[in-house]
């Protein structure tokens, strides 16, 4: 049994991620169930200020899953990072005892924590995506962007290579997109600064976006809700102040897969893109149901 740990971001600014993810999995024949009574993993803030909270908040969710003898599927890179790190740290018996006391639930046994990309790149899904495509993405030049957290977990064997991951490239090509190779796929976008230090965050996004533009990307695809929000917000922000060249829409990998599998705006929420995705996606839409609902 595997339960889905959505995390807080996926119910607000990353809603398009969870909506498209649920739809894509359903389309591939898998029903997704949310982890009951899940709570925030404390991402970025807990570990920044308090070591005990940094472990206790994710551990509470691990305990729930363990009680149900369930594995976890995680989409958000930050949640994934915290849950994995905590599980690894709890290997230390002293820490495990301390955290168990804080969580007030038994922490034992092992469970697997899997990233959505890890599950989707399992051979059967890759094949099914390829076979069940209903809509062409040909001509769409896609750069995959992982950001920093998805693959960088110290001392944990990850699902992909640390410095040069390729799972999204495999998925995007299975979906029929034209995959670009570019150098900045694991550069940090500075999302944790987008509230407290806008200027710095904008500079970091700009570097990444410029490189994507120079490499000829039509679209950036990511699996991290913070990266999606930050890179999208950065382009929206610039467009408020100056006329800029057309935005490079940043969409979730599940939205891209959904496009190939025939999803429309209702299923994929493509119109939730802040910087706008019409100029890239509407040409695809000639033969299909409304891809984007103009708001």
């Amino acid at each position, binding site marked *: 049994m595997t339960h889905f740990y959505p995390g807080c971001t996926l119910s607000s600014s990353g809603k398009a991620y969870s909506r498209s993810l649920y739809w894509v999995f359903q389309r591939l024949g898998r029903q997704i169930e949310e982890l009951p009574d899940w709570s925030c993993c404390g991402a970025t803030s807990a570990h920044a200020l308090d070591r005990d909270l940094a472990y206790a908040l994710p551990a509470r969710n691990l305990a729930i899953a363990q009680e149900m003898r369930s594995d976890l599927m995680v989409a958000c890179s930050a949640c994934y990072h915290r849950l994995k790190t905590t599980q690894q740290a709890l290997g230390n018996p002293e820490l495990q005892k301390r955290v168990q006391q804080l969580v007030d639930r038994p922490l034992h046994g092992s469970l697997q924590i899997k990233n959505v990309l890890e599950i989707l790149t399992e051979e059967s899904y890759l094949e099914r995506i390829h076979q069940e495509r209903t809509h062409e993405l040909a001509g769409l030049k896609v750069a995959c962007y992982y950001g920093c957290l998805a693959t960088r*977990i110290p001392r944990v064997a990850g699902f992909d290579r640390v410095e040069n991951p390729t799972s999204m490239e495999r998925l995007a090509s299975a979906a029929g997109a034209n995959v670009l190779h570019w150098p900045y796929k694991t550069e940090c976008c500075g999302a944790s600064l987008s509230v407290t230090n806008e200027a710095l965050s904008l500079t970091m996004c700009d570097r990444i976006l410029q490189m994507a533009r120079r490499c000829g990307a039509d679209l950036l695809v990511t699996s991290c809700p913070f990266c999606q929000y930050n890179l999208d917000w950065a382009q929206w922000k610039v467009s408020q102040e100056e006329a800029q060249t057309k935005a490079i829409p940043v969409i979730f990998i599940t939205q891209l897969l959904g496009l190939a599998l025939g999803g429309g705006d209702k299923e994929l929420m493509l*119109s939730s893109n802040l910087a706008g995705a019409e100029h890239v996606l509407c040409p695809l839409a000639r033969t299909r149901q409304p891809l984007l609902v103009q708001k």
Partner: protein
Amino acid sequence: MEAEETVAALPHNVQRDECAAGSFDFIKEVEDHSGERISRCFQCDKCATGCPMAEHMVYTPNELFRLIQLGDQAGVLASNTFWYCISCYTCSVRCPNDIDIAHVMDSVRELALRAGYAPALTQARDFHRIFLGCVRRFGRVSELELMARYNLHRKRPFQRLSLGWTLLRKGRLEFWPFRRRGLRELFKRVEELR
């Protein structure tokens, strides 16, 4: 050779002889708190080379580690390095001595706050506190609540209104994504253990 030069080039006016006579208490404190072996660092500079924030840091990560080894507690805790660290973990996965550097940054930040040092980035500390307050009360974070509280705290209630409006219009804000109960008991137990 390299290491010698890096140490000599420390931007801080640490007298090396002075520190050599200094104590090991501080490195022990940091190692105990983080569980990481900072004494292993041999100044290869890999962490600083890949750090996206290095240009904003008074001491790059390797320099900070050298100061920890030398026992310069005040110099370390008053620095801005761990405030500018954005936890991208680039350094941690590249360190040839398997030191989780990003985790050490968290530890040093915690020690600095505990010892009463003023944060180099007050907004960052405040943001994290407000964030954790939301988790305590509701168990989950509503971005709407988080932003509203942060803006109020900064006494700029009308900041980012157009962003908020755009997010709302595009269906990217949720009004009530909370659990019914917060995590008050868990937070209390954490505080009691401190």
